[in-house]
Structures are given as C-alpha cells and as structure tokens.
C-alpha cells in the first residue's frame, strides 16, 4: 500500500456527458447520515433524481452470533443492535424466548418492563429530536434534549448499572428489582418532562422556518407506507392508527391507558408531531405504572437450562421506538437458538427512503434521513 493512490483518467468528476446530472456519494462519512449510511445520489443541480442506499458498513453478523450462544447470553448482543433503544430490543428478544418456552412473566416484572420500555422510548425519541433538529440546522434543541436524556439514562444506570447497553431483562422476568427510591426519582422526572417538552416545542413546533422545512416534505401516503412495511411513528405519521402496544398487547400494555397519535398528511412535520405526542403518552403510561406497581416476584419459575422445543419456531414483535422490532427464533432442542432472525424497524423503514426523497432537494434529504429515525447498528446488525 506504499504506492500513491493512482488517479483514474479524467472521468469528468462523475458528470454525465450528455446531461446536467451528477453523481454524488452521500456518506458514509457525512455528518447527517447518523452513522455509516451511504446514499448514491444522482442529482440535477440540487434536486435528487435517484437515490440508492448502500448499507452494511456496520455489519457484525449478529444473527450468526445468536446461533452460538444460549438464549440468555444473547441479550447483551441485542443491546448493540439499536443501541439507543436497548431496553425495547431486550424486551422483544426475551418476549420471543418466553413465547417459545411458555414462560409467564409475573405482574411486577411486566409493570417494570413497561416502565423501562417507555423510558427507553422517550430517550430514543429525545435523541431523534436532537439529531433531527441539528440536521435541519437548529442547534440548541440538541443540548436541551440531551440534558433531559442524561437524567433518563441516570435512571437506567440506577436500575441496571448501564446507561446505553442495558442488558436489563431476562427470559421470564427481570434480573434485578427496582432500587430504593427509584420510583420517586422516576416520578419526579415524569412530572418535569412535559414542561421540558413544551420548551422544545416552543423552539420548533410553531417556528416558521421549521415548518417550511418539514411541512409537505417526504409525504408517505398510508397505502404506500403499508406496502413498504413501514412501522412505528412513520406509519402513524401517515395516518394509520396502528400500534403493536394496542393491536397485539404484550407485557400488560392492555392494562394501561394511552392514546395512539396519528398524522394527517404523512409528511415530516406530522411524523415530528406524532413522536412529540408519543413522548407525552409515554409519560402518561409511566405515571400509571408507577401508581399501580404491584408487589411480588420479578422472575417466573423457569428451567435451569432453558431449552426450546425441537422444531419450535416463533415470531414475536413489539413496538419499539422506531417501529416493530421482532425476533423470529427457531429452536432445535438445544439451549441455543437454531436460527434467530431480527426484524429491524430501521432496516425496513430505510427501504422507503428512495421513495421519500424522489424529487427532493439535498437539504430535504437530511430532513428525511432524520425523520426515518434510523440507527445503523440496527440496519446492518
């Protein structure tokens, strides 16, 4: 590798000889691609004619790793897929394993799981808001949201000892009970959070520049959204009132009251509003759970070595912050999963990006990457 990089003969810098179009490689080292997404763009001036996402720069073979370890050892690996929403990844995985083994989770564990998952949803949405805003050029919400996210992560740290890669759930229940005083701190934050959300909204929601940048950008009609398999806030932003927490309730979500917000036009602004309301609804769910937190065990009775039945297969999906995160697990009678496939919401949602940014400008593209709320750790796994 000592020889200097040989330059190709003049290739007109990717300009097509007979047209105005230019090829632009957007990423993987680009500040707005949230990691290592690469988009091959064909642009005419600043207008995008065609885009082709290139992914896989963060591929770590997680699904192969799953096959090598017993069920419980895979939980830390799930943390590292969507690394800003580890609790929901854990929840989806242990949910699938529980379904496979027939484990029943005690009510206290279920309630704490809901609290953790909703805290994680808020923290993931806060991070999304921070990066989305900074993509569109508003720098300040980034710091405000991180201020609150820090307190949230402190709660996670108090509970399980980690801030991002939580490893906080086990098949059949939870590894730890809540520490003393945790519920009080959580309730205090929940009382504080709606006011902080108002602050962010004051900076963005009515701001005419923000509206100009988001209203009518990247419209995704509901039929197209369903056709693309888009889930989560993106689907709800398109006006489909579908939330797995309501549709196929898991971990006792049918016992709490909350509303599922939907958008009207399916544009970037609607998705922004949907996520903002979702955070408020999460606060509402957490408050209910803190109120009714039952006493009792936090771990179900489970076999010492967890083995799936021979030829057993299961698919279990939950509502993650970014959409449906599901695990398809095949068992073969050993303690390891025979096959464990992840349905990553970011991966499927990212698929709709070329459709969204057809005819958009480069400036819209960063808004659209922000609004799809991708985490490349999950896209590439």
């Amino acid at each position, binding site marked *: 590798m000592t020889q200097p990089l040989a330059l190709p003969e003049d290739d007109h810098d990717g300009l097509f000889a007979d047209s105005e179009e230019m090829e632009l490689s957007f990423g993987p080292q680009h500040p707005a691609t949230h990691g290592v997404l690469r988009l091959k763009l064909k642009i005419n001036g600043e207008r995008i004619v065609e885009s082709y996402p290139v992914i896989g720069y963060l591929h770590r073979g997680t699904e192969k790793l799953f096959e090598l*370890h017993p069920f*419980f*050892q*895979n*939980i*830390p*690996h799930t*943390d*590292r897929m969507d690394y800003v929403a580890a609790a929901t990844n854990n929840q989806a995985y242990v949910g699938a394993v529980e379904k496979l083994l027939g484990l029943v989770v005690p009510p206290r564990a279920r309630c704490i799981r809901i609290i953790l998952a909703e805290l994680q949803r808020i923290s993931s949405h806060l991070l999304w808001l921070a990066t989305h805003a900074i993509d569109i050029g508003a720098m*300040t919400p980034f710091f*405000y949201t991180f*201020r609150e996210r*820090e307190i949230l992560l*402190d709660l996670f*740290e*108090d*509970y*399980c*000892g*980690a801030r991002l*890669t939580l*490893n906080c759930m086990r098949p059949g229940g939870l*590894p*730890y009970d809540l*520490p003393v005083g945790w519920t009080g701190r959580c309730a205090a934050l929940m009382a504080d959070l709606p006011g902080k959300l108002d*602050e962010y909204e*004051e*900076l963005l929601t*009515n*701001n*005419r*520049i923000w509206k100009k940048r988001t209203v009518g950008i990247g419209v995704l009609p509901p039929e197209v959204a369903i056709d693309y398999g888009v889930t989560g806030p993106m689907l709800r932003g398109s006006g489909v009132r579908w939330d797995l927490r309501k549709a196929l309730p898991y971990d006792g979500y049918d016992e709490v009251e909350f509303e599922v917000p939907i958008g009207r036009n399916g544009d970037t602004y609607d998705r922004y509003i949907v996520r903002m309301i979702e955070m408020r609804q999460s606060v509402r769910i957490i408050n209910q759970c803190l109120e009714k937190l039952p006493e009792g065990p936090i771990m179900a009775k489970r076999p010492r070595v967890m083995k799936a039945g021979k030829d057993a297969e299961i698919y279990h999906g939950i509502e993650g912050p970014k959409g449906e995160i599901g695990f398809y697990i095949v068992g073969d009678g050993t303690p390891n999963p025979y096959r464990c496939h992840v349905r990553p919401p970011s991966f499927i949602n990212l698929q709709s990006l070329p459709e969204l940014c057809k005819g958009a400008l480069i400036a819209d593209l960063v808004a659209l990457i922000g609004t799809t709320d991708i985490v490349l750790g999950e896209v590439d796994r």
Partner: protein
Amino acid sequence: MDLWKSVRKVADKLLLPDLFAGLALTFKHMFREKVTVQYPEQRLEPSHRFRGMFRLDEDRCIKCTICARDCPIDIIYIDWHQEVNPETGKKDKVLDRFDIDLQRCMFCGLCEEGCPTEPKSIWLTTKTYELASYDRWKNLYVDMDELQQWQVRPAYTDEEIA
C-alpha cells in the same frame, strides 16, 4: 370572523411571534443554571449498581468457571488445579490463572449474575469508569492479582500523576 382571521394572519406575517418566542426561550436559558460537569475536577458518582471494573475475591471463588461459561464473548480465562491443603488435609482447587481481557469486555454483567457464591466472588459494581489507557495489553488485560488488588482508577489529574 374571517376578518379577525385575516388580521391575525397578517399580524403573524409581520410580527413573527413564533420566531420571537424561540428567541425569548434561548435568552432565558442564558441565565439559567448550567448542566456542564467540569470533569477532572468534578466527578459524578456512579450509581450503586454501576457496572465498572472487575473485582475478584479468590477466597470466595469456588473455581466453578460458570462466569467464564456465561460470558457471551469468552473473555474470562480460568485455569485451576487441585492441591492438598497442608493444614486441613483436604483437596482444594487452586487458581492458576484468572484473566479477563477487558479490551473486548462489554460490561454486560452476566459473569457476576452467574456467580453461585453469596456474596458474589466476581463483581463489577466498583463505581469505576475511568478505564481509558495508553497501553491496551498492559492495562486492559488484567490477571488474577490485578483483579484482587485493583481498586484505584488510573491517575488523571495533575496532582495524582505527580
């Protein structure tokens, strides 16, 4: 009503209330308390359950190697042999090697969770987070003695280094 609406629309166009609301918010924040932690001088106390650097208690350890087996990435290396204890005359397991390759450790805590002794003989709850180092093999590959004596973080501030 239409008139009122159009008046408001014009006022909205001219007076830019939304932009001024944002400006007011950022201006207010200038005088609020800051959240920055001045790191080397101020340090945040990690929570009690914080998963940091490992500790090992060799006397408590029963050499069952469950921690090594439970580790998802196999970074705990344990060798032991049996030896007759001259005092009691019983056969005891003696650790030859208990190494942890911290470079790859992801601090999941499954080793601690799997440990059958009570209290645990390997634990991560040491409230330590300053593990950065200039020499990975020297400082991030810890053996048995280091695990037992390990209690201070590396020197960081000027006074500590001096």
